[in-house]
Every structure is written in structure tokens, then in C-alpha cells.
């Protein structure tokens, strides 16, 4: 029960009389503007009974879940993307419109709509009520953030608002779980069609705003006072001097977490996979099947799952930053720097986290609403030097670059080489972003708009749901695409069998492919052995180290001096530099390809990206070999 005097809240959702015990709807759409707390409400209603998928053919993610009514009936809730209007100018708006009007074959036409609006900014948000009510679908208007409204002295007459809109209205605080009964009552009830007193011409934005203003006035809406804490925090966090310092501290913390704090977890998981694999291998006894299960399936899937801590830690950060409202401020501060390469402030955090791993980084680009900016960010993220590149980099640098001091105590030649590779990847990213943003992903004059939400405490439930959601999306790939690819690569490295035993790697199909591509990679200074490594490292970049290890019959470890020594037989110094350049540019990572396919809704972008990065890798390695060779 809300405490504000003008809210005749009890039973406001049941304002319009209806007959008893109607059938529950099969599907209900949840829609609202960005920052209306729609996702929090969705989590409250559906809990863990959620599914996430992509709407086929588009890049919009579809969240749906089951809400249980008190009498045991189930209602499917479809969470639509956050939109300000239904004008179908963006993909999000198009999908929302198509779902609401039953034009998408993959989604049932919703029998009712839950429209979530921010009660602290009611009059602007009410503009969305006009196109929604005009659909003629039973609608519950949910005024969210009731606690905020109350605390800041805002109020309204719910009965009068419901009468104006001709639809039931519920005052809710999804964060606090307040008023949810009314939502459930609506879902369980008869749900009459809306009968608003009047609706504006939908195409006319000023008229819509005027209508929303009138409705608000007639409902005696008193807007809340400006949020005091948001103003206070912004005066520090957007302060010309203090603001950038806080921003820098956040950036360092994210970077440090992704790199240092996630590493022990990553290594721990790796260790668990290794010993459990060995244990299972012992139990099964040596056989071909054991090798397939352990070296193919177990290690392959394990090589993806070990990145889970990084994915979860990144999304914990993104979750805290986004839910608290700081992400918008960080984007504001980073915007001018990012604008120089044609991107925008919201690209910054994903690109930063790509230094640890491109996979979570690409998943994190969902915070970028502008589709072109988002795609450009996805396209350049794999150029950032991810942690998987460190293994081949370390092996080759230790093997070929003598450790000498340059710049006194500050820098050794080996460190300088590593730093150079980081810079190389960064430059490739910047140049690519510029090319993309001035050609196929040009934004034109589309204005950059960034709403600054009020600061709020992130809730554990919301953070937990977000982590669970991302973990499921990430692990589902490990179980499908990656599993298939690692099994195929295992087969290539083990067939043909002779006397029921797998071939040694140098006479396997992989080796034949290595020999077959040798003419193509010879201009880069690579022979067929390196060729095998390039093929197996398609699964993941670090795989080349263990592959070379098994070719030379040694422990596949980048710090192994014997392996470093053996490499000198197959690589000239020029070839070594060429291999470094190749790894800096090439998209040698199935996980990244799979995640790009998912996030862009098709094969077009990952195919383009793979072709572009492979071309760059080949050309770069060619130049490096011939200049230095």
C-alpha cells in the first residue's frame, strides 16, 4: 500500500469492473521507455523462469519468461526492447511494433500489454501511452518507481489517471516489490480493452506531448523535486577535474579485475579441467574414445568455460555501472575521445574489456543503443590484445628476441616487443573503426543522445539475474558450436588411424592440410608445421603452443626453453616477427566468431570480419617477413 495521500491505490488495477474467473492470457507483452525499470519488473514477475534468444533475422534480443498466477496458471511475459515511441525508425521500435501487432511469426500476438512508465517523469513517459492504447489491446499502465516519487514529494490521482486513459493504472515499485499484486490481479482478471477519453494524432510529437501533459494535469500529477543525491553526485563525478579522475579509477579497476583478479579463477578452472580430465582418462583406460572425450570434447569445452570468470566479472561491473547510473556518466566523459575514431562514449567499456577477452566485450556492446556504433565496436573489439594472445606472443618473443635493456631500467627489448604488439592491435582497431564509420557503418547526421538516469543502488536480484542470463548465453555456445569445432579439429589431428591407433600429428590430416597450405604461407616465412599450428589455433589462439609442443614431442608450454629452441629450426627471425604480426591481426578464435554471429543476428558480419582480419594478418605478416627477412 502506498503512503501518498492522493493515491487511491488499493484496487486501482481493478478499477474497471469485469466478470469473475476468466481464462489467463497465453502471452503478455512488457513494454516501456529505456530507464523505466522495465527489466527489474520483468525479473520480479518471472524470477528464474526466463529464456533469452535472438529474434530471428534481427539483432534484438528476446527475453521471455513465465509468470505464475496465484491459482497456478502460467502467463508468458515477452520483454520487448526499451523504446520511446512505436514509430519503427529503429530496429528495436520495429520489433516492438511487429510483436504488439502480431506481425512476427516467431512470437505469439500478445493478448495484453503491461506498459511500464517512470512515475517520476510521468508526463514525458505518458507520450508512449498514446500509441500503445491506440492498438486496442487490453493494457495495464504501470507507474514504476513509486518509492522515488513518494520520497521526492511527487503525487497523482490514480483514479483520475485511469479514467483519462480508459485503462487500469497501478503504482508500483519493482525494486521494492511494492504493488506487484495489482499486476498479478490484472493478469488474472478479465482485462477489458482500453477506452481512453481522447488520443492525439500519433505522428505529431508536440500534440502527443500536449496530450500527455493534459492527462497528467487532469490526474493532478505533481512532479517530484529534482533528485538531490543525483545532483550532488554529479557535481563530483562530472566535475572538470574530479570527474576524469574517478573515471580513470573505474577504468583501472575494470582493467585490473579482468586481467589480474580473474586470472587465478581462470587458472583454477583450467587446473580443475586438466586434473579431472586426467582422472577420467585413467579411469577409462587408454583408447581412441578416451582421447576423443578428453582431448577433443573435455579440453575443447574446457578451453571456453575457463573464460567464464572473466565473463561474469565483466558483467558484474557492467551491471553495477549500468544499474547505478554511472555508465551514462562514464560514456559522457569518454565520448569525445571515442568520437575521434567515429565511435561514441558507450563503446569505451566494451573495448577496454576486449583487452582481456573479446567474447564478453562483444556481449557487453548491448549497452550501445545505436546499431551502427554497436556493430563498429563489435568489428574492432577482436583487434584488442586479448589474454589468449599472450601465450603465442610470450613463446615467440622469448624464443627470438634477446633480452636487452633499452631506456635504462624502464624497458627491456622483450617488454618493448610486447608493448609494440599491443599498440599494433590498437592502431588496427582505430584505423578499422575510421574506415567502417566513414563507409558501411556511417551514422550520418544521427544525433548522439545520452539520457542521464538518476543514481540508484543496484539490487542484488538484478545483478544476479544479469549474471545468470549472460552465463547461460555464454555456456550455450560452449555446448554447441565450440564443441563441434573442437571435435572436428581433434579428428583432423588424429586421422587416419593405422592399426586402430591415431596417426602422430605429423602424418595426420591436419599435417596434410599443413603441407597443402605451405605454398600459401611460405611467403610469410612459415612452413607446414607452423601451418598445422595456424589450423589448430583456429579453435583458440593459445592452442598453437600445445600443437607445436606435440609436433616437437615436448611439453606445450610457452616458457619451455626446449620448445623455444626447437622453433629456431622452423622460423627465421623475420618469420617469427611475421607470426607475431599474424596473431595480432588474425581472428583465430571460434568463440569470437560464434559470439559475433549471435550478436549481429547472422553470418554476414562475422564472415566479413574474418575475411578482413585474415587479409590484414596475411598482408601484415607478408610485409613483416619481407622487410625484416
Amino acid at each position, binding site marked *: 500500500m502506498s503512503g501518498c495521500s492522493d493515491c487511491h491505490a488499493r484496487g486501482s488495477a481493478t478499477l474497471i469492473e469485469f466478470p469473475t474467473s476468466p481464462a489467463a492470457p497465453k502471452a503478455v507483452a512488457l513494454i516501456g521507455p529505456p530507464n523505466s525499470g522495465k527489466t527489474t519488473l520483468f525479473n520480479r514477475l518471472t524470477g528464474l523462469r526466463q529464456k533469452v534468444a535472438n529474434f530471428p533475422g534481427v539483432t534484438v534480443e528476446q527475453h521471455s519468461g513465465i509468470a505464475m498466477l496465484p491459482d497456478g496458471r502460467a502467463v508468458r511475459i515477452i520483454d520487448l526492447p526499451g523504446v520511446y515511441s512505436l514509430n519503427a525508425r529503429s530496429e528495436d521500435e520495429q520489433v516492438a511494433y511487429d510483436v504488439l501487432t502480431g506481425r512476427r511469426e516467431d512470437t505469439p500476438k500478445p493478448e495484453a500489454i503491461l506498459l511500464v512508465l517512470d512515475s517520476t517523469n510521468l508526463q514525458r513517459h505518458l507520450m508512449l501511452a498514446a500509441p500503445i492504447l491506440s492498438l486496442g489491446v487490453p493494457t495495464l499502465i504501470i507507474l514504476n518507481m513509486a518509492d522515488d516519487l513518494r520520497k521526492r514529494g511527487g503525487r497523482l490521482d490514480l483514479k483520475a489517471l485511469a479514467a483519462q486513459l480508459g485503462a487500469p493504472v497501478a503504482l508500483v515499485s519493482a525494486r521494492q516489490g511494492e504493488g506487484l499484486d495489482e499486476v498479478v490481479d490484472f493478469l488474472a482478471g478479465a482485462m477489458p480493452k482500453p477506452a481512453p477519453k481522447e488520443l492525439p494524432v500519433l505522428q505529431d*510529437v508536440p500534440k502527443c506531448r500536449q496530450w500527455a501533459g493534459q492527462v497528467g494535469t487532469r490526474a493532478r500529477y505533481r512532479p517530484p523535486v529534482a533528485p538531490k543525491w543525483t545532483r550532488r553526485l554529479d557535481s563530483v563525478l562530472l566535475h572538470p577535474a574530479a570527474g576524469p579522475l574517478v573515471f580513470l579509477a573505474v577504468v583501472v579497476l575494470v582493467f585490473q579485475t579482468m586481467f589480474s583478479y580473474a586470472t587465478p579463477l581462470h587458472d583454477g578452472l583450467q587446473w580443475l579441467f586438466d586434473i579431472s580430465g586426467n582422472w577420467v582418462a585413467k579411469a577409462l583406460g587408454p583408447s581412441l574414445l578416451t582421447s576423443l572425450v578428453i582431448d577433443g570434447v573435455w579440453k575443447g569445452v574446457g578451453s571456453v568455460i575457463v573464460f567464464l570468470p572473466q565473463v561474469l566479472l565483466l558483467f558484474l561491473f557492467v551491471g553495477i555501472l549500468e544499474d547505478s547510473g554511472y555508465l551514462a556518466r562514464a560514456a559522457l566523459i569518454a565520448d*569525445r575521445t571515442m568520437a575521434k575514431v567515429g565511435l561514441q562514449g558507450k563503446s569505451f567499456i566494451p573495448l577496454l574489456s576486449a583487452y582481456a577477452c573479446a567474447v564478453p566485450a562483444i556481449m557487453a556492446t548491448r549497452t550501445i543503443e545505436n546499431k551502427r556504433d554497436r556493430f563498429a565496436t563489435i568489428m574492432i573489439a577482436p583487434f584488442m590484445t586479448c589474454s589468449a594472445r599472450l601465450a603465442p606472443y610470450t613463446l615467440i618473443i622469448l624464443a627470438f628476441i634477446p633480452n636487452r635493456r633499452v631506456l635504462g631500467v624502464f624497458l627491456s627489448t622483450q617488454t618493448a616487443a610486447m608493448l609494440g604488439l599491443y599498440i599494433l592491435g590498437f592502431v588496427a582497431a582505430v584505423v578499422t573503426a575510421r574506415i567502417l564509420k566513414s563507409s558501411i557503418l556511417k551514422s550520418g547526421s544521427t*544525433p548522439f543522445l545520452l539520457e542521464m538516469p538518476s543514481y540508484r543502488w543496484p539490487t542484488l536480484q538484478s545483478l544476479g539475474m544479469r549474471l545468470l542470463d549472460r552465463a547461460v548465453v555464454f555456456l550455450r555456445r560452449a555446448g554447441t558450436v565450440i564443441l563441434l569445432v573442437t571435435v572436428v579439429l581433434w579428428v583432423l589431428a588424429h586421422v587416419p588411424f593405422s592399426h586402430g591407433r591415431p596417426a602422430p600429428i605429423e602424418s595426420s590430416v591436419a599435417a596434410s592440410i599443413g603441407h597443402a597450405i605451405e605454398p600459401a604461407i611460405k611467403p610469410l616465412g612459415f612452413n607446414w608445421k607452423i601451418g598445422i599450428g595456424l589450423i589448430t589455433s583456429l579453435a583458440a589462439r593459445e592452442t598453437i603452443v600445445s600443437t607445436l609442443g606435440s609436433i616437437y614431442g615436448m611439453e606445450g608450454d610457452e616458457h619451455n626453453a626446449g620448445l623455444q629452441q626447437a622453433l629456431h629450426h622452423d622460423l627465421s627471425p623475420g618469420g617469427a616477427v611475421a607470426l607475431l604480426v599474424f596473431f595480432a591481426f588474425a581472428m583465430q578464435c571460434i568463440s569470437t566468431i560464434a559470439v559475433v554471429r549471435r550478436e549481429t543476428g547472422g553470418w554476414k558480419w562475422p564472415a566479413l570480419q574474418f575475411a578482413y582480419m585474415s587479409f590484414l594478418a596475411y598482408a601484415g605478416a607478408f610485409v613483416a617477413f619481407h622487410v625484416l627477412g
Partner: protein
Amino acid sequence: MQLSGNSRLGERFDASLQDLRRGEAAVLDRIDLPGDDARRLMEMGFLPGTTVTAGLSAPGGDPRVFQVDGSEIALRRETARRVKVRMAK
């Protein structure tokens, strides 16, 4: 045509949101952007006749946050320049 409305308020020829300093307010006159872009801004609250107040900004003053219709929306300089205003005291 640029000199619209109440010239008593001492408005400048062709003033835009970009000319506002922190804390200054003005009444929105028109948006010099193509239809869809202007509508996007209008949906966020940038409607003719609305009072817009300039707020804090990123270091260097770009982008800047504007308080409009109960929300805080950041605009880049290139966009703020296209939103024409009548200066209000």
C-alpha cells in the same frame, strides 16, 4: 524568421543550445535537423516552447547535459548547435 517571438527578452540572432553556459536557461525555438532526427529529439522532450537548462558537461564542454522536461539528456556540440533557442533571462 530566425528572430522569432518575444524580442523583448533580448535574444540573439540564431542562438542555439551551444551558446548556453552552465545554469543558463532558454526557450526552445526550433530544431534544424532532418525530420526523423528532430522527432527523436522531440520524443526526448526537446519540443518547441520548452525551457531547456544547460547543466554539467564532459571535460572540455562536449557533450553537455541539458535539463529538459524532467530529464537530463546529453547532446554533442554538433547537435546542440542545431537546436535553436530564444534566450530567456
